[in-house]
């Protein structure tokens, strides 16, 4: 009933209502200058407190310089050996080998000094993030009200794109490498706070009671009982925090501009030196994997309560000291000799040129096909996309009628034969979007669909949330930008879910595929998002298509993971029962495994959307239109108001879709 009303309403909007422009484009006159308010509020806050933040910048600059100087002064042999020993301690000789290989790559490639600068920033930001996150986590664990506030803030922080954070921090702390550190510390305290709360809440009550019965005071209770019992979860938090810091330090190169590895990548990308870009990007990838595995290894160990012998530490320390002394006499151990360095960047560039010369036409054809037949129609609608120039013919009224006839027949068939009115509504909506494009549909109609959907899924609460989100987006004047971004994300999400879902099913049914995919997925997931831009950019140049590819590369991981997990998790007894009943393999998949994997698949879809939105912001670097670009532009102008408004709009979309999907899984 409600859907029929909405459909009629949309019909009116798109036909008769066309004469009322307010229905169609959100009128500029209705928007509120929210970004100005934010900017002014921010300025009012910044003015008097500027000295504080600038002081903090100065205070952080000193330890950063000291750390950089120290890491720079230590002989490479000592640092590399230290990394290898640490890797061995964390998870054995395989990781140690990996650490050795990574160190060798960094040294030989000539990336040692920017790498050390990056590590110095990570080393400074991590304790800041860990300590403040831990403090917040403890507060949240102890006080109920604080927990609700903190969880709300963290959710918002996790959905606002990284660049949007940088802007206010930039304004407060000024330019320079310290901004990166502050931004990373703030960005990364989320996982620490969450894991702290989780870890403390998970301490079994019997352990706590045992502590009480032993006569622990409050302080003893916390430091001797709860804290050590939660150690594993806390270390998981440290792991996630370090990874977040690392990713952010890399991204902060965009504004920071010290000689660190992120900046190298950015610089080479700007100069279109893709060979160099790829090589330095690989440094980031290797570092990310190494840091992740080392911290994760310690976290996994902590659960088992194993301890290193003192002798081992003495031995390791002696080895490092020995190397240090040796480096004083053998300069080759101190500074890596430049004649040992070797960079295949030029060769790579040559290959790339040859590759492009060979396959360039085919790739361009592919790219154009996707742009003209998929991306453009979705964005501006068939009605505008189909032109003699692109499709080779113009849209005649007959074709339009034909299109709607097909849509109508499909929807009717779904309703009358299948009896599935939801499917029929979805088909109508898809037809509508395809015809006018996400940027062409009447805003009021789209808003009505979203609101009705929220209400049906999650009742009045979700409806209220959706109303607030839509109101914010529309009133702040971001509607058009949001629809621009939405189309790119939606397309990426659909591709990811179809492609990733298929891969996930395949991996679940085939152990070899699974074993092959796993390390790739691991690597994709640990990698700072920034790095993923390089290959896409290399092959397809700047543009929305490249952004789409980058988003797909990043966001395809969750559907593969969750689908595989869900399908594999189907209860063996039920599968056996189905086989006993004579189901074929496909039937088992269709009727048993996939339905049972549904909760996991829903989670995967949710994660895919969130990943796509977060990657969208990064992809702005390679050219997108819409919200992400607005943030990027605001960043270059240090316009806190505009940047935050665009960032919050993305956060609204993310939180709304998250809630709607969770509501779907709850109903199921």
């Amino acid at each position, binding site marked *: 009933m409600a859907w029929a009303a909405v459909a009629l309403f949309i019909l009116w909007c798109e036909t008769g209502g066309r004469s009322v422009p307010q229905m169609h484009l959100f009128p500029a006159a209705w928007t509120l200058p929210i970004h100005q308010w934010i900017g002014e509020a921010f300025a009012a806050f910044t003015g008097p407190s500027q000295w504080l933040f600038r002081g903090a910048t100065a205070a952080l600059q000193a330890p950063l310089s000291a750390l950089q100087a120290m890491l720079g002064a230590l002989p490479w042999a000592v640092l590399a050996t230290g990394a290898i020993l640490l890797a061995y301690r964390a998870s054995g000789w395989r990781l140690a080998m990996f650490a050795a290989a990574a160190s060798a790559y960094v040294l030989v490639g000539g990336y040692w000094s920017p790498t050390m600068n990056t590590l110095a920033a990570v080393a400074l930001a991590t304790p800041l993030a860990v300590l403040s996150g831990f403090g917040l986590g403890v507060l949240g664990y102890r006080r109920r009200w604080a927990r609700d506030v903190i969880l709300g803030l963290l959710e918002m922080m996790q959905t606002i794109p990284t660049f949007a954070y940088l802007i206010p921090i930039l304004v407060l702390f000024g330019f320079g490498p310290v901004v990166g550190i502050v931004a990373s510390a703030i960005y990364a305290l989320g996982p620490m706070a969450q894991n702290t709360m989780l870890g403390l809440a998970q301490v079994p009550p019997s*352990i706590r009671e045992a502590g009480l019965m032993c*006569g622990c005071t409050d302080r*003893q209770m916390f430091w001797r009982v709860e804290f050590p019992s939660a150690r594993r979860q806390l270390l998981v938090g440290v792991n996630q925090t370090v990874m977040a810091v690392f990713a952010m330090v890399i991204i902060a190169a965009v504004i920071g501009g010290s000689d660190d590895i992120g900046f190298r990548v950015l610089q080479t990308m700007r100069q279109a030196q893709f060979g160099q870009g790829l090589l330095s990007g690989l440094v980031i990838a290797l570092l990310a994997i190494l840091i992740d595995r080392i911290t994760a290894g310690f976290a996994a160990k902590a659960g*088992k309560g194993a301890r290193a012998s003192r002798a081992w530490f003495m031995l390791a320390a002696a080895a490092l000291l020995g190397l240090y002394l040796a480096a004083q006499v053998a300069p080759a151990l101190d500074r890596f000799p430049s004649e040992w360095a070797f960079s295949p960047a030029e060769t790579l560039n040559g290959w790339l040129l040859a590759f492009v010369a060979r396959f360039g036409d085919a790739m361009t054809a592919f790219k154009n096909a996707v742009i003209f037949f998929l991306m453009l129609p979705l964005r501006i609608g068939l009605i505008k996309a189909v032109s003699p120039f692109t499709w080779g013919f113009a849209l005649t009224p007959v074709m339009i009628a034909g299109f709607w006839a097909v849509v109508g027949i499909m929807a009717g068939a779904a309703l009358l034969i299948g009896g599935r009115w939801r499917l029929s509504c979805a088909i109508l909506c898809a037809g509508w979007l395809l015809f006018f494009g996400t940027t062409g549909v009447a805003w009021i109609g789209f808003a009505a669909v979203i609101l009705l959907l929220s209400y049906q899924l999650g009742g009045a609460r979700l409806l209220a949330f959706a109303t607030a989100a839509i109101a914010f987006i529309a009133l702040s004047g971001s509607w058009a930008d949001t629809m621009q971004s939405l189309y790119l994300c939606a397309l990426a999400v659909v591709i990811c879910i179809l492609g990733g879902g298929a891969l996930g099913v395949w991996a679940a049914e085939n152990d070899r595929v699974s074993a092959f995919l796993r390390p790739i997925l691991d690597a994709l997931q640990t990698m700072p998002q920034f790095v993923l831009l390089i290959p896409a950019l290399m092959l397809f140049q700047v543009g929305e298509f490249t952004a789409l590819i980058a988003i797909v590369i990043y966001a395809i991981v969750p559907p593969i993971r969750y689908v595989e997990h869900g399908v594999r998790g189907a209860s063996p007894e039920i599968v056996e029962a189905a086989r006993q009943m004579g189901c074929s393999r496909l039937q088992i998949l269709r009727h048993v495994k996939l339905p049972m994997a549904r909760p996991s698949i829903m989670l995967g879809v949710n994660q895919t959307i969130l990943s796509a939105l977060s990657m969208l912001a990064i992809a702005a670097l390679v050219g997108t239109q819409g919200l992400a670009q607005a943030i990027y532009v605001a960043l270059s102008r240090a316009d806190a108001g505009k940047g935050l408004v665009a960032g919050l709009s993305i956060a609204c979309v993310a939180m709304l879709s998250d809630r709607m999907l969770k509501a779907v899984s709850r109903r199921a």
Partner: protein
Amino acid sequence: MTGPAVETKLACRNLWKVFGDGADRAFSRSRGETEQKVATLRGGGLIPAVSDVSFDVAEGECLVIMGLSGSGKSTLVRCLSRLVEPTAGEVIFEGRDLMKLSGAELTEVRRHKMGMVFQSFGLLPHLTVLENVAFPLRIQGKGDADRRRRAAEMIGLVGLSGREDAFPHQLSGGQQQRVGIARSLAVGPDLWFLDEPFSALDPLIRKQMQDEFLRLQHTLKKTIVFITHDFLEALKIADRVVIMRDGRVVQIGRPADLVLSPADEYVARFVADVPLLRVITAGDIEEPVPVSLSTNGSVSRDAPLESLLAKLAEVDALPIVESGKVVGQVTTHGLMKAVAAASARADRGWSLERA
């Protein structure tokens, strides 16, 4: 507990614990008898987990608390040590009302006078066996050497010598619980709480642990409050048993009392599959002596019927002798009657449960 009155170690008087939001206010406003209060509280969406419980535990006694899952056993013992703050009532330990102690005083009492063993062990995962056992001593600030010596002694007592440096996750369930027991004994407590200490263990290990527990108790002679839902376990170790149902005490008595005269169907069902001949003693079916009976083949009052069967197959009656004098007799007829009555009750309980 037939001997002379001994000193009361622990007592609780009209103890209440109500869970839920605003429990304190709701409780202080509720009026009337226990029944009525419970009904009002339940009606208000609250959970009276312990309602108006009173009992004494004598020095050196082993009191077992039994009841179905959710009947409030754990909550009750936690109230006795104030791990859970009672809503109302008194807990008197060695003549002092625990409810009136300050936080610091309570900590002192727990440090030196009480020990507790948990169903899920509650061992600290990051400490070795030795450190776990030494933990309460460390909390008290005892010196390192002292701690190690005492902990090693306790570990020996529970038969875990040689595993001092293992971590809890490297031990089996039975071994983990031994560590829990050793830890609870490390400070030499006077009062020992055990909350279903053996329930998480498989039957064979459980039996072994029970025997070990009896051996320990034989040498240590602690005052014990022991929770179980296994009547056979209670039978083995209890001096007296408290049966709880929905937060209320249904019956308190010796195991044989419960078997011979259960207060209601609930208790009857609990004792349904007890080996009657092992629980009921000669004293329970004692009859007056007719005229004169020789002391030939005499038995004592607390001899279980099981041990009389062979003799009663030969003669009709056996004399009961206490301190050299014949005080009564056991007859074949009396034995049959008692067993028949008890098993009839058990059957009824069983059929009720099925219904």
